[in-house]
C-alpha cells in the first residue's frame, strides 16, 4: 500500500502531512462559508426577527405563527404545489417518448438530438423572454390562433393561464435534459425483450407499457425526484412571465418568489424569509422521500 503516512523519513519529506488539507482547503472553505454556514444561519434566523440592517432577537415560533395567517404564504404554497403537480407528470412521460423517438440511429438523428437539447443550454431568462413574446397578446401564438379562427387568448393576463404558461415553459426547457437521461437508460434495455414481446404479438403500445416502462422504471423515479424538487423551487419562469409582483394581485407568486421579495433589499425581513425557506426545505425533503417511497412500494 502506498500510504503517504508511512512514517519513513524519506517519504515524510516527500509527502508533507499538511498537503491533503491544502488540497481540500479551497473547496471546504467555500462550501463551509457559502453553503453550510448560510444553511445553518437560515435555520437559526427563522426563529428571530432579524432584518437586513437590524441583527434581531430570538422570537420563538412567532414567524411560523405569522405564516399560518399570511394569505400570501398560502398562495405561494398553493402555486408551488400546483407547479409540482402540473410539471412533474409531463417531465416524467414526455422526455421518455422523445427519447424513444430519437433512439434509433436513423440518418440525421444526431442533429435532432442536439437540436432538442438547445432549450436546456439557453438561460432561463432568455427562454422566459422568448415565451413572453410568443404568448404576448399580439405575439406569434395569438397570431396563429387568430388566423385559424380561435381568437386571441390572454395567456399572460389571466392568473391561471399565466401559471399554466409558465409550467409549459418549464417543461419545454426541461425536455431535452431528461431526454438525454432516458436515452442512457434505454440503451441498457436488451433488444431481445422487445423482440420476444413482438413475437408474442404485442403491439407498440403494449411493448411500451410492458417492456420499456418496467425497464426504465428506476430512471423514471430519478426524473420524478429531480423534477419535483426543481418544480417546487420554481422562481425564474414565473418571475419573468408574471412580473416581480407575481401577476394580477400577486396571485401567481411562488414560495421562492416570496422568499426573494420578503428577504432582500434594505428593509428585508430576513427572519421571516428564513421561516419560509425552512418550509421550502421541509417540503423538498418530503417530496424526495415521497417519490422514493412510492418507488419502493411499486417494487414489492
Amino acid at each position: 500500500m502506498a500510504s503517504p503516512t508511512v512514517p519513513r523519513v524519506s517519504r515524510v519529506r516527500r509527502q508533507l502531512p499538511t498537503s491533503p488539507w491544502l488540497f481540500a482547503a479551497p473547496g471546504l472553505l467555500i462550501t463551509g462559508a457559502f453553503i453550510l454556514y448560510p444553511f445553518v444561519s437560515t435555520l437559526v434566523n427563522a426563529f428571530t426577527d432579524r432584518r437586513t440592517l437590524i441583527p434581531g432577537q430570538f422570537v420563538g415560533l412567532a414567524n411560523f405563527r405569522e405564516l399560518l395567517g399570511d394569505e400570501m404564504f398560502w398562495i405561494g404554497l398553493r402555486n408551488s404545489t400546483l407547479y409540482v403537480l402540473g410539471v412533474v407528470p409531463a417531465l416524467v412521460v414526455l422526455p421518455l417518448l422523445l427519447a424513444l423517438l430519437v433512439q434509433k440511429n436513423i440518418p440525421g438523428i444526431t442533429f435532432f438530438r442536439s437540436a432538442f437539447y438547445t432549450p436546456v443550454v439557453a438561460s432561463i431568462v432568455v427562454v422566459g423572454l422568448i415565451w413572453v413574446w410568443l404568448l404576448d397578446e399580439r405575439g406569434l401564438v395569438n397570431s396563429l390562433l387568430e388566423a385559424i379562427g380561435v381568437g386571441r387568448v390572454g395567456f399572460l393576463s389571466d392568473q391561471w393561464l399565466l401559471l399554466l404558461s409558465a409550467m409549459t415553459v418549464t417543461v419545454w426547457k426541461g425536455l431535452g435534459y431528461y431526454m438525454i437521461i432516458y436515452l442512457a437508460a434505454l440503451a441498457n434495455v436488451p433488444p431481445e425483450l422487445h423482440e420476444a414481446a413482438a413475437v408474442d404479438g404485442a403491439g407498440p403500445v403494449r411493448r411500451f407499457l410492458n417492456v420499456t416502462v418496467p425497464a426504465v422504471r428506476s430512471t423514471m423515479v430519478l426524473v420524478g425526484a429531480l423534477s419535483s424538487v426543481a418544480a417546487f423551487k420554481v422562481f425564474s419562469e414565473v418571475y419573468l412571465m408574471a412580473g416581480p409582483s407575481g401577476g394580477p394581485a400577486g396571485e401567481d407568486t411562488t414560495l421562492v418568489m416570496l422568499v426573494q421579495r420578503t428577504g432582500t433589499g434594505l428593509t428585508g425581513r430576513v427572519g421571516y424569509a428564513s421561516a419560509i425557506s425552512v418550509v421550502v426545505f421541509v417540503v423538498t425533503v418530503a417530496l424526495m422521500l415521497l417519490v422514493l417511497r412510492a418507488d419502493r412500494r411499486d417494487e414489492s
Partner: protein
Amino acid sequence: MSVIEKVRPAASRPAVTREPRVTDEHGRRIRVWELALRYLLLLAVLALTVGPFLWQLSTSLKGPTEDIFSSPPKFLPGDPTLHNYERVADTIPVWDYALNSLKVATANVVTNCVGAALAGYALARLRYRGRRVATVVFILAMLVPVEGIIIAQFTTMRELGLNNTLIGVVLPGCVSALNVLLMRNAFLNLPYEIEEAAYVDGANVWQRFLRIALPSVKGTLAVVAIFAFMGAWDDFLWPLIVLSDPSKFTLTIGLNYLHGTFANDERLVAAGTVIAVAPLIALFACLQRYFFRGVGEGAVKG
C-alpha cells in the same frame, strides 16, 4: 423520399419482398411508412424546440417599419437589419453586461476546475484523518437547496462587504460540491497502480497529481468547465439578489431590466436575448459530447 434513399445500403440486401427496407442499430427492419412517420414527428418536435429561437432571431432582424404583429405572422424579416442591435446597445450597456457575464463565467470555470480537482483528488487518493468527514461535508452541501439559502447568502455577502460586486456573484458557487464529487469519482476510477509506481519512483504528491492523475481525467474536467461556464452565464436568481447597481449587471439581469423597463419594444428585447444566447449555442454546437456526458454524470451521481 429522398431521405430514405440516403440510408445505408441495407436496401440493396437480398430482401424477401421488393419493398426497399432500412434496418436500425439492432438489424431489425424499419418499414418505410414507419420511417416517414418518425421523420414527420422529428420535424414537428424540431419546430417546437428550435422554432421559438428562430422566431426571436427573426423578430430581432425586423426593421422599425415592419409589422411584427401581423396575422397571419410573417416568419422571415422582409428587410433584415442589424439596427435593433445598435439600438439595444444605446438603451442599456449591453456589451458591458456581456463582458461582466464573461468575467463571472470565466472566473467560475477557473475556480471550479482548480478547486474541484484539488479537493476531488484529496477525497479520492490522499489518506489522512478526516477524509470521511470531508466527503460527507460535500455530500451534505450538494443536497442543500440553493434557493432556500439565498437570503442567508445575501446577508453573508453583506457582512463581507461583497454584495453588489462581481466577486460576490462568483463566490458562493466557485467550488461547487457536485463538481468536487464528480472529480472524486473520476479519480477513484483511475487504476491505482500507475500512481503507486510513480510514488515508488519518488514522485511527490504534487507531481503525481499534476503529471499523472490530472491528465487522465481531462474528460471530466471538461464537463466541469462547461457546466461551470453555462451555470454562471445563465444564472439569474443569485445575481438578481446580490447586484443592485445597474453598472455591475450581468447579461441575464440586464435583460430582465430591459424587459421590465422597455417591455413594449419587442425588437429590442429580441436583440438582447439573441446576444445572450448566441455564445452558448455556439459553445454547445462545438462541444456537444461533453454537454451530454455531463447530464449523465450529474444525474447519476448527483
